């Protein structure tokens, strides 16, 4: 109440205070740092190629961003990827024609998203604990189906990441296209606007006639579908499927969203931020690989980054508005 008619901040200042700016500057910094470590790094093809390793997670992170803006969270997508991929691989290895097997994989993903949605929306359980449960359950089921063995996929199905379109690996292109599409959905449509409204104040959103349950449910289902697509793409990249496909991926996805400035308590965040954060992560982790750092060190860095990025976004948002 005290700051009644405060003066408008100049546009550049608003832009500077946006968390995406932080992500972008970190990205530039990481590029400089990495290219100092290795001249390879200035090679775009090398970066694009490295990106294929994270492209599947990054795609799911885009949808996850929308889920978090809406005030929920989903920690189960990496397990969903594994279970969809295992179902698909198991189906095709037991003689079911490929198109149907792919369909089974995708349907499984949608069903898993539906289960999450039902428990969170219809039964009103907290999404954070529900999806920890389904995180364990879905990966467990993948292990039941696949055992400890790898299931091979047909040769022609392998290597979608090596498929180069317009000089760019197909999965990277797919990620870019999905970013653009979801960025438009979130930024310019009524549906996108309503996601922000729900995440900011769900009760007020209900009073304003927004169908909050329907929108949240569609996001959980979209999450399931995106995860299963990501699972199949990963299967194609790896050439075989094991139950531990994408293990620990939820950390990277949450990290991409957080690092891109998505607010953990909902209502704020952008697809652009997550897009930039995905590149930042790839550049940073490739840089660390080039610098011969152990994968373990990278895990440590990811953990630290996650904590630092939530503290930073919380701080930025508390500064710009109360």
């Amino acid at each position, binding site marked *: 109440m005290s700051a009644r008619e405060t003066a408008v901040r100049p546009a550049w200042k608003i832009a500077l205070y946006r968390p995406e700016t932080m992500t972008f500057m970190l990205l530039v910094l990481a590029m400089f740092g990495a290219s100092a470590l290795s001249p390879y790094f200035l090679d775009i093809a090398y970066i694009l190629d490295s990106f294929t390793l994270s492209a599947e997670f990054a795609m799911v992170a885009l949808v996850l961003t929308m889920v978090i803006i809406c005030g929920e969270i989903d920690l189960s997508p990496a397990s969903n990827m594994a279970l969809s991929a295992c179902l698909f691989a198991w189906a095709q290895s037991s003689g079911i024609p490929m198109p149907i097997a792919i369909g089974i994989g995708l349907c499984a993903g949608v069903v898993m998203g539906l289960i999450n949605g039902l428990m969170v929306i219809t039964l009103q359980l907290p999404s954070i*604990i529900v999806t920890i449960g389904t995180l364990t359950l879905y990966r467990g089921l993948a292990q039941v189906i696949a055992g400890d063995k790898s299931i091979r996929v047909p040769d022609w199905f392998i290597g979608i990441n090596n498929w180069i379109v317009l000089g760019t690996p197909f999965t990277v292109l797919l990620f870019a296209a999905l970013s653009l599409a979801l960025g438009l959905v979130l930024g310019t449509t009524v549906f996108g606007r309503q996601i922000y409204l729900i995440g900011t104040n769900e009760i007020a959103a209900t009073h304003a006639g927004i169908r909050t349950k329907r929108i949240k449910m569609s996001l959980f289902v979209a999450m399931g579908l995106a995860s299963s697509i990501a699972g199949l793409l990963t299967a194609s990249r790896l050439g075989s499927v094991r139950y531990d496909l994408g293990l620990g991926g939820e950390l990277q996805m949450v990290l991409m969203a957080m690092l891109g400035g998505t607010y953990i308590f909902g209502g704020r965040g952008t697809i652009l931020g997550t897009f930039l954060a995905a590149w930042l992560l790839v550049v940073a982790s490739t840089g660390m690989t080039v610098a011969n750092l152990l994968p373990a060190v990278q895990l440590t860095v*990811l*953990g630290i980054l*996650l904590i630092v990025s939530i503290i930073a976004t*919380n701080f930025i948002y508390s500064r710009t508005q109360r």
Partner: protein
Amino acid sequence: MNLLRTLLIRREAGIFVMIVLFCLAVGVVKPQFLSLNSLRIILLLVPLILIGAMGQMLVLVARHVDLSIGSILGLSAMLTGMMFKFYPEIWWPLGFALAIGTGTALGLFNGVLVTYFRLPAIIVTLGTLNLYRGLTYIVSDAKQIDRQFVPSALKSMSQTSPMFGIPWIIFMSLGIAALTYVFVRHSQVGRQIFALGSNPVAAPLRGINAARVTLLVFALSGALAGLAGIMYASRWGFVNPSNTGNGFEFQVIAAVVIGGVSINGGSGSVLGTVLGVLLLGCVAAALPLLGIPGTTQSAIYGAVILIALLIDRSVRQQGIKSLTGRGVPA
């Protein structure tokens, strides 16, 4: 005997009945399940989970969650193992001090982030889950601590027995459970944990220091995970940077939520948690006997968490119904 009754008409009796029914059912199919030997197997499966569950119970009662305990277990075990490896002459019980100390420090770090930066515990501990695991690789240079480095006195704690052929570590874990019971039931701060989780708004108005209580539960959860770390070294005789403690948090959370600890804070009991751990142990022991592959364990933990959530919800809704009253504050 009111106290006893209020204790028993609650969740604990239900879990106990479930354990008995489960064991009888398995016993009908495979009579050897009802032998002393399989009881020993069950009991050997549970001490680590039981110790971790005591800490997780405190955290959940205070309305938080700690996903990092598996990694804390791993890092504490690794540091202790390395101490044994590089200083073989050292008096081995010092390992306990190191493991518990490490765990406490890591738990406190979680607590500080949750308390002073006001971050949700689930995201903080998802971050530290990976952070601590990464640190484990770094300090160990990704190398396992092999059997020959773990002091035999420590290993023998899992084999030798003071009585009834039950090994030391089982007595230790039961001792921890008993201590936790005394702590939550009979100490002022133990009751404050329940009060804080039961009504976080009212607690500070009644003079409860919420920050201190939150730090305490995370520190205790870390300390107990650290203790579980050195007991891992005792039980299995080695410490591996990637396997040790991996997935521990899900087993523990599953056990705790079956034990009737509410994810909405404020309620839970040591007895219930112990029974929850035992039920999980019985299931784990029965699977191989029934010819069900060990690969189903993880799926069962997941299903168990979800089912417990649903039970918790229906219990809570009855509570809400009976609490709801009319009237708007003026």
